[in-house]
């Protein structure tokens, strides 16, 4: 086979197309969000959209370079990449620039800044894939599980110190990777159960919550009273749940930061402070809601253009989509993401190499988690957590890190017939 020819045929052009589509959508929406009549040009570097164009160009170049690299170069240097990002994450805590309360940026000259946490997601995925694909490694074994947890946990911890809650939480999405590789489904169920308990315990009197879960557990135990093991498990689980419910108030009041508490209150409808803490979310909902079915049209959005919506080109970029392109546009954008994520899963599953498969799941989980939290936050389903919308939000670090995340997968995939 002609190497060069097969190489380009093996690249998954569908994903490249989605990638380019999302970048373009992002660029136009950033233009609309910060549109300024004094700088009508879309390429001026004084503006966010001009810079974003530059990032997109760089991103594409980076993508091409990745595709041209030898696969071995990537796989061999995995631990080095991971190490470098850990070093950068430490460096940022010492020498970083504090923007908006997060010590997350390192100045790299020319007015540009690097956000190591964005790259940490990529390198954590790589190292996790590398480790789990090793011989005789099974997630079900405690030791392997602990090491996998540590690979995810280190960067999490360092990012939590910045403190950047959003990026920290992104790493939790890697639980899907572990699940795919054999982790017990109880981890997912228990995780979901704990989130549900947390929310209900805040909304309702913890005593009632305990009564209800006890009643449910009692019913199940009664139905399966023959099964001694199940009864024991249920009783242990119930005890843990009761303790958790009782400690929710403590976690909520003492562990969480006041602003995080308020954000949870607002999302749960306990508090409504439309002029103060709830202003951002309310304005975001107004912007999206006022888009109706077909939107107001490109550059016609008023809520975003007249700066009612905060952070409108970064974390709240989806407001511009919702306002100017309406429900139709929102469905297209969300549809593209879903398609992207499902396509990545499909690609992951067609790999012979477990490394690529695990890495693919990592990429899919990270992208999906970003989309879910970001869009959920703008429409009031999730508390306000500042993480970008992949490829669409303004920001060089984010765009380039997602580019690398996706194109490394494409590179690995294009080489799926070869030996890793």
């Amino acid at each position, binding site marked *: 086979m002609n190497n060069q020819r097969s190489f380009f045929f093996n690249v998954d052009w569908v994903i490249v197309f989605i990638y380019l589509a999302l970048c373009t959508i992002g660029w136009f929406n950033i233009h609309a969000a910060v549109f300024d009549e004094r700088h009508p040009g879309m390429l001026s570097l004084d503006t966010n959209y001009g810079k974003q164009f530059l990032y997109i160009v760089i991103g594409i170049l980076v993508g091409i370079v990745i595709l041209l690299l030898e696969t071995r170069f990537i796989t061999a240097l995995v631990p080095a990449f991971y190490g470098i990002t850990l070093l950068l994450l430490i460096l940022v805590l010492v020498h970083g620039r504090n923007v908006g309360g997060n010590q997350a940026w390192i100045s790299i000259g020319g007015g540009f800044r690097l956000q190591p946490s964005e790259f940490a997601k990529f390198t954590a995925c790589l190292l996790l894939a590398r480790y789990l694909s090793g011989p005789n490694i099974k997630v079900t074994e405690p030791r392997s599980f602990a090491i996998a947890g540590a690979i995810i946990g280190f960067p999490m911890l360092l990012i939590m110190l910045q403190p950047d809650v959003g990026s920290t939480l992104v790493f939790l999405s890697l639980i899907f990777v572990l699940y795919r590789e054999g982790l017990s489904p109880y981890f997912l169920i228990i995780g979901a159960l704990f989130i549900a308990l947390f929310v209900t315990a805040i909304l309702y009197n913890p005593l009632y919550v305990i009564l209800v879960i006890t009643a449910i557990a009692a019913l199940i135990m009664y139905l399966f009273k023959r099964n001694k093991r199940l009864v024991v498990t249920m009783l242990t689980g119930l005890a843990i749940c009761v303790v958790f419910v009782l400690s929710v108030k403590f976690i909520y009041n003492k562990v969480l930061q006041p602003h995080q508490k308020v954000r949870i209150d607002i999302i749960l409808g306990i508090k409504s402070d439309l002029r103060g803490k709830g202003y951002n979310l309310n304005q975001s909902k107004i912007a999206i809601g006022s888009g109706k079915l077909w939107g107001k049209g490109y550059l016609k959005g008023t809520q975003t253009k007249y700066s009612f919506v905060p952070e409108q080109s970064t974390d709240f970029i989806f407001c511009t989509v919702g306002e100017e392109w309406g429900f139709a546009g929102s469905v297209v954008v*969300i549809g593209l993401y879903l398609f992207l994520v499902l396509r990545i*899963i499909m690609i992951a599953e067609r790999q012979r190499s477990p490394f690529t498969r695990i890495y693919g799941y990592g990429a899919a989980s990270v992208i*999906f988690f970003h989309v879910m939290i970001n869009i959920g936050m703008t429409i009031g*389903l999730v508390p306000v957590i500042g993480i970008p919308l992949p490829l669409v939000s303004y920001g060089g670090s984010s765009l380039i890190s997602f580019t690398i995340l996706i194109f490394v997968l494409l590179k690995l995939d294009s080489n799926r017939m070869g030996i890793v």
Partner: protein
Amino acid sequence: MNSFFERRYVIAGIFITIIIVLLARLFYIQIIDDKYAIYANSNVRRPVIHNPARGPILDRNGKVLVENVPYYDITVTPNLVKPFDTVDFCKLLGIDRAEFNKRWTKAVKYNFSQSSIFEKQLSATTYASIQERLSEFTGFLSSTRYLRSYPDSVAAQFLGYIGEVTDRDMKRSNGYYHPGDFIGVTGVEKSYEPVLRGQRGVEIQMVDSRGRPKGKYANGLYDTAQVAGQRLTSSLDLNIQLLGEKLMKNKLGSIVAIEPSTGEILCYVSSPTYDPNLMVGRERGNNAAKLYQNVYDPFLVRPIQARYPPGSSFKPLSALIALQEGIITPQTSYYCPGYYQAGNRRIPCNNGEAHGLVNLSSAVAKSCNGYFSMVFQKIMDREGGKQTENTFADWRANVGKFGLGTKLGLDMPGESRGNVPTPLYYDNIYKRGGWRSSTIVSLAIGQGELLATPLQLANIECTIANRGFYYKPHLIKAIGAQNIIKKEYTERNYVGIDSSYFKPVIAGMQAVVEDGTAIRSKIPGIIMCGKTGTAQNPHGEAHSVFVAFAPRDNPKIAIAVVVENSGEGAHWAAPIASFIVEKYLKGSISTRESGIAVDYFANANRLPDTTFYLHHAPKKVRGITPKKLKADSVSKIQKSAGNKNKKTTSQFIAAINKKNDE
């Protein structure tokens, strides 16, 4: 491939489920729930209202009665201000440093990036001296605003005044008026409000989150242009209006003069009057309160709201009705012994004077009470002494045709209908059938329950001057630049008296002035026909009444003058009327044979004793009340409080935006 292959579907399923939740939520807020779209509009659209200038009002010769005078406010936008010489600036405005600091702090507190008023209501002359140098102080601008101004301070009750709208006004206007708008409260400002105010312009502006204007909404597609208020040309003649107000100074009463050939009111004096400029500007509230406390009630529009017994001025009308009914002829005569015996009542003639043998004309000229009482009884008793009810109803209808007892439909608010008693009224007093012609004979000489407004009296003179018809009296001659005249003002209203019957009556009225009761008021070179009246009333001394028209042939002016509590018509009302008539017809006032002169009458004080007058003061008519005044100031306070709230809100939002944490 490994053993957990099927878990891909679980993961994909979770992802798809979450995406569906997101889409469902989006569907709800974007398509089902409309409230966000409404919020969005209220976020960015700010209607800016442009109130057009109110229409000016001119007199019949085009002289200005009310105009709009520009006042200048100096506004400041703190964030635009660049360092400047404060001392110099203070000197320019004539304020001290402390005052400057106070206002500056206030402006900054109000809104750092929006303009607010720094100095209020500078007159054009003061502004002229500042204007040139204002450009040196970046951030300070001037804005113009128009206030009503009355160059001659005349005709206050006619012009009325404007004030801030009340809640009731706003409700009744179906949302046209907004708090802080001005509306005509009385006078022509009220009755011609829709014409004078013009059409408000609304511009829908787009604003950003800090309230800064960002241009027009939809390129001004939904904006409405303001239309300036229309000009009104009143029928008043400024010259005689000024003369009338001068003559009526320190007297209570009114003057109404009408052009008989059109119904246009030439003179509309209500005394005491006030300077309409007092009802404008910063001191308005205080001035209004003071005027309201004035016991003589300057806000009472006496020409249409005060009701007087017409007294002897009613006699010509009495005669005309009798002639038309065929009860008497001009030759019918009566021997006056100095009184008239009606049943067991004796009606004395004026001062008990015995007039001897009088016919119609001389009875009018000498104002013989006896003659008219006789005529009245004849009318009442023509169907027999017990059938007065029907004959009285007929008589009442005939009187009504002249406009007595009904509203004439003047284009002013608050017109009174006067009073002509109904048969029912007497039934209630004397019980049915219990009253005879002799009971009500005082109506014959304009006394009894008969009450008329000065406008009605003047209108009767118009009818006599026209020999049988009148035009609806009106104060606004023409509307707008095209001088539109209402059609109703060009229609003749006939009173049902043949024109031939007027001759003897007019002859009598001519004699009143030539050698009758009003001989002192004879105008050299002008034949004036008039009738004096001395209207006895329960409020003290008789009102001095005089009605007239002139010249006799082809009359140009009909007039009614009432001077309250001043005795005989010949003494006060007749001379005043004669000056007005002469001034109107000749343009100047000549020396009179009788020696009467304007200055004497202008300077005389005929105000009744306060304590006595208060006791019998005429009822207050709707218009300004203490309650209304209070409401006015309350609304102002509320308005300023409202501004304060706005202030804090916008500040708050600005502060939030600044923070925009994470």
